[in-house]
């Protein structure tokens, strides 16, 4: 079995973002970029399934400008066997377009599993995995906190999902799409020898024309603004003062 993992290059999670003065978006120039944390978890899980003997190959895919190759190299250094870079410079794509690209790739690559993060920390959409599954007509297991591929022959996976109010366990036939939640695993660090080795691993370049994907943009970003700032609060000196304020000023207790 082959596992396809989609990885996205996003502004590093620790960066405090700045909205552009012209309100067209968030400033991403000269800002530290990294692999989306949920994608790291997805890749780690794919690697673990391969190491457990249930998969032969892990293929990392990234869609976007040329710098996405860096993200793919990070993935290869973690242990992915090869990378696919779908070059798309034009604009920011909607999850629907990304899902269509991934569907086309799945048609070519025939993976048994597609792993994605549950959401990207920049657009916070939480859509792509579900949409890929729909387009392929495959079952989906979203927000996974535990994945067990049970049987090499029968080809199904049991997945614990993080849902409101607890955990839910599903069993999905392969091929399937799984999106990962934070608690699924602890992604490994790439070691220096692996980083060196990653440089010789292949990254295939593809274009939208190769994949025959029609780019649909039915969502228009009108403007991006900063959220209202909360007005500054006060530091109280004692529990008594705190209770007094909550009672008589805020009227919440």
């Amino acid at each position, binding site marked *: 079995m082959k596992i396809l993992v989609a990885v996205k290059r996003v502004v590093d999670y620790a960066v405090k973002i700045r909205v552009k003065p012209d309100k067209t978006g968030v400033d991403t120039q000269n800002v530290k970029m990294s692999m989306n944390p949920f994608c790291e978890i997805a890749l780690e899980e794919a690697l673990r399934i391969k190491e457990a003997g249930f998969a032969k190959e892990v293929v990392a895919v990234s869609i976007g400008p040329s710098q996405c190759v860096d993200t793919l190299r990070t993935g290869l250094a973690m242990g992915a066997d090869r990378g696919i870079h779908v070059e798309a410079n034009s604009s920011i794509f909607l999850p*629907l377009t990304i899902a269509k690209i991934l569907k086309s790739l799945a048609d070519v690559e025939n993976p048994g599993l597609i792993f994605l993060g549950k959401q990207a920390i920049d657009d916070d959409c939480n859509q792509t995995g*579900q949409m890929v599954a729909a387009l392929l007509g495959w079952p989906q297991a979203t927000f996974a906190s535990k994945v067990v591929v049970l049987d090499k022959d029968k080809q199904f996976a049991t997945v614990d999902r993080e849902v409101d109010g607890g955990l839910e366990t599903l069993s999905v036939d392969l091929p399937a799409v799984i999106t990962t939640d934070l608690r699924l695993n602890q992604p490994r660090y790439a070691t220096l020898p692996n980083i060196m080795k990653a440089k010789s691993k292949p990254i295939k370049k593809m274009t939208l024309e190769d994949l025959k994907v029609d780019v649909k943009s039915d969502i228009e970003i009108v403007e991006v603004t900063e959220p209202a700032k909360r007005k500054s609060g006060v530091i109280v000196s004692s529990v008594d003062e705190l209770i007094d304020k909550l009672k008589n000023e805020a009227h919440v207790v």
Partner: protein
Amino acid sequence: MTRTILLRALTNKKKLVPSNSHRSISITNLSRCISTLILAEHESGSIKPQTVSTVVAANQLGEKSSSVSLLLAGSGSSLQEAASQAASCHPSVSEVLVADSDRFEYPLAEPWAKLVDFVRQQRDYSHILASSSSFGKNILPRVAALLDVSPVTDVVKILGSNEFIRPIYAGNALCRVRYTGAGPCVLTIRTTSFPVTPITESKKATISQIDLSNFKEDSVSRSRYVGQSTQDTERPDLGSARVVITGGRALKSVENFKMIEKLAEKLGGAVGATRAAVDAGYVPNDLQVGQTGKIVAPELYMAFGVSGAIQHLAGIKDSKVIVAVNKDADAPIFQVADYGLVGDLFEVIPELLEKLPEKK
């Protein structure tokens, strides 16, 4: 059909004449034919409060005359019970559609997404909504892909029938988006942004059973529900509680976290936790508050031993009053707190427990 043509005409017009006056006219015109389908969430015979919030949001899409249909799927008597409750949950609900079948016994995305599409084919809807719960986020993007449209997740404000505000970058920016597609507009609603006001008017919507004899499933049986482990608590639901008391890593142990629970009990509130506290195993993960956990907006939010990482702040920003207790005076949580107390939570919590007035 007429709606589709009208929508198309309007979107074209907007591209030619992007002036504001024209847009407001188009929205008013459009609002006359808004019909919304809401995928309802229900549990043991009653509709979830998040679904009622979604109805409130649906009302802001257009004029009062627009129609709101609730779709309930499931099986057996609890479904019928929930349906009759749904019919009177909000005066603006005009119709309750019930899909009763074993196939919907559990909320599996594959049959449910197919069902929404199936219902949409029979009755033309301009909008399809669900709450941004794990249920809605699982199913609606799948529905949108089946319809070949882009969904909008986590809508916090509705500006018109096709213009919305949603947070991005963990709530550090707000993105105003316009849906320009021809198909139905698919949205998930951040329910804390659409509070339910007490309903005085009582009205009962019609309940109709959906004929499922033509409902085809192909990928349906390829996923199976195995089981669920739910945390049963007496406390109010985290997402809709009036008071939320949260603990961070500084609590140091499961035993110490009990202090947070006691305080929550005393104030009639819900317990929340930071990711650090969840990862340390102090509490189960469905109590996590933040960008990737629950989004809360209670009247009173109290954070104990919480540093205030942006991912956590993303989940509490809309709380009315934020109280922070932390040893570290430089903790970022104090920048958003209305009342901050620099001190040791192991001293402060017992004192609070002792001195806070009893909640009836």
